[in-house]
């Protein structure tokens, strides 16, 4: 029995970058009230590059694995490049997701986009907010 590609199972069993960032420059929470999935995504942007990222929250294997994979994909990348990331990019990195679960898989990406936007608006150092 598959359906969950190895990459999803791997990230679900061994999440990367799970936890909180002490000093995020951007952060956002996205939730799906209908199934209870919640993902918080935090990033620290330094010199136009994503220096670090963390996710937390709870929910299904797909949303959690997608969050984990996403952090792995973005850390060390220029913000400009990450901002260009499309839904399909994440989905194919996950090895494909059944269509009934697309919203779970894309929840972390929605959170990331919000986090980057929140970071962009921040003009003062985070400690002072």
């Amino acid at each position: 029995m598959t359906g969950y590609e190895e990459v999803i199972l791997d990230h679900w069993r061994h999440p990367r970058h799970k936890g909180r960032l002490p000093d995020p420059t951007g952060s956002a929470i996205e939730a799906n009230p209908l199934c209870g999935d919640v993902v918080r995504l935090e990033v620290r942007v330094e010199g136009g590059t994503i220096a670090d990222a963390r996710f937390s929250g709870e929910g299904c294997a797909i949303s959690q694995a997608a969050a984990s994979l996403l952090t792995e994909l973005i850390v060390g990348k220029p913000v400009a490049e990450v901002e260009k990331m499309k839904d399909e990019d994440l989905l194919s990195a996950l090895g494909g997701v059944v269509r009934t679960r697309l919203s779970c898989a894309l929840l972390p990406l929605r959170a990331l986009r919000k986090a980057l936007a929140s970071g962009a608006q921040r003009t003062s150092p985070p400690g002072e907010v």
Partner: protein
Amino acid sequence: MDERIRDDFPILRRHEHGKPLVYLDSAATSMKPSAVIEAEADFYRESYANVRRGVYELAAAATDLYEGARAKVASFIGARPDEVVFTRGTTEALNLAAWGLGETHVDPGDEVLVTEMEHHANLLPWQEMARRQGAHLRAAAVTQDGELDRDDLRRKLSPRTKVLALAHVSNVLGTVNPVVEIAAEAHRAGAVVVVDAAQSVPHMPVDVRELGADLVAFSGHKMLGPTGIGILWGRNDLLSELPPLLTGGEMVREVWLNWATWDDPPARFEGGTPPIAQAIGLGAAVDYLRAIGMDEVRRHGEKLTALALDGLLGRPHVTVYGPRDPKARGALVSFALAGIHPHDVATLLDQEGIAIRAGHHCAQPLHRRFGIPASCRASFHVYTTPDEVEHFLAALDRAWEALR
């Protein structure tokens, strides 16, 4: 149950992801036998017309079929035809009940009592009604075992309680509530009793008079009938007091620009062109269920539920919600696998062609009561086989292996 019943349901020949479809979501909606599909199609092919008012023969024939369907449904639940109102479904029926009772029976400061296990369809219309009337909505608690807390219900039932609305069978817990006793208590307190029978009428013999309720709602699509049709049954004297929810053609006597007089029930509540073909399809579904016999339908549901319960309760990583005795349950079981989100279970089972439901099943407060965002639910009807239940249990083990 005769295995040949499956041949009556064309969709059961469907395959999903290359595997034969195992449909275990009958509590959400049931599949349709050819007899129902063809009854509707034949009506359009041979006898279609608008009902009531037509002077020509074809309209009379269509009206006979429509009213004949009403008579079938009435006799199915031990009622008189003039007590059977066709609606779009349980949801409209309960909205109609809440609207009408609000306008006539509930004043500021009064109370409306529901339970924690209600489907949103039997909660939101009462919230809205209570708000409109300035009344208070209260909810009787559910025990950890998934039963109605009778003491709490008694405590909350008072002379201020104008309406008690509760499910006959919970669509999540499966619990069969003792409506006969509860209705008697509520009547002693002076409350009108409204029963959401969406999960009982399709699965067990229900006689509305024996039930002792005043208004009873259910849906055609969960009892092998078409979508777009449901029933509000009501004691005729109570129905006669209620104003309509929808106004328009065919529910009036005299209409002037500034006033109108309502027709008698059931016409009063069926404003506009009704779901004619759907009523006729529902009549065919009732015929089909009666031919099997509702005792047999119930027996079959109990057998499958016992099998599923047994299998689930025997797996330590599975939590089952609701009563453990299949006789105290409808034909469904809700459950969860430790540490695994219900949606993941459902998706993995879907890959094997097994359709179960995962989510809050339109009962968010109940899930909150149990501290969970969602649950899995397997539910059955006459076409479900013991083999399918076994197949489901085996697939569940594979899902557990894959994700734990």
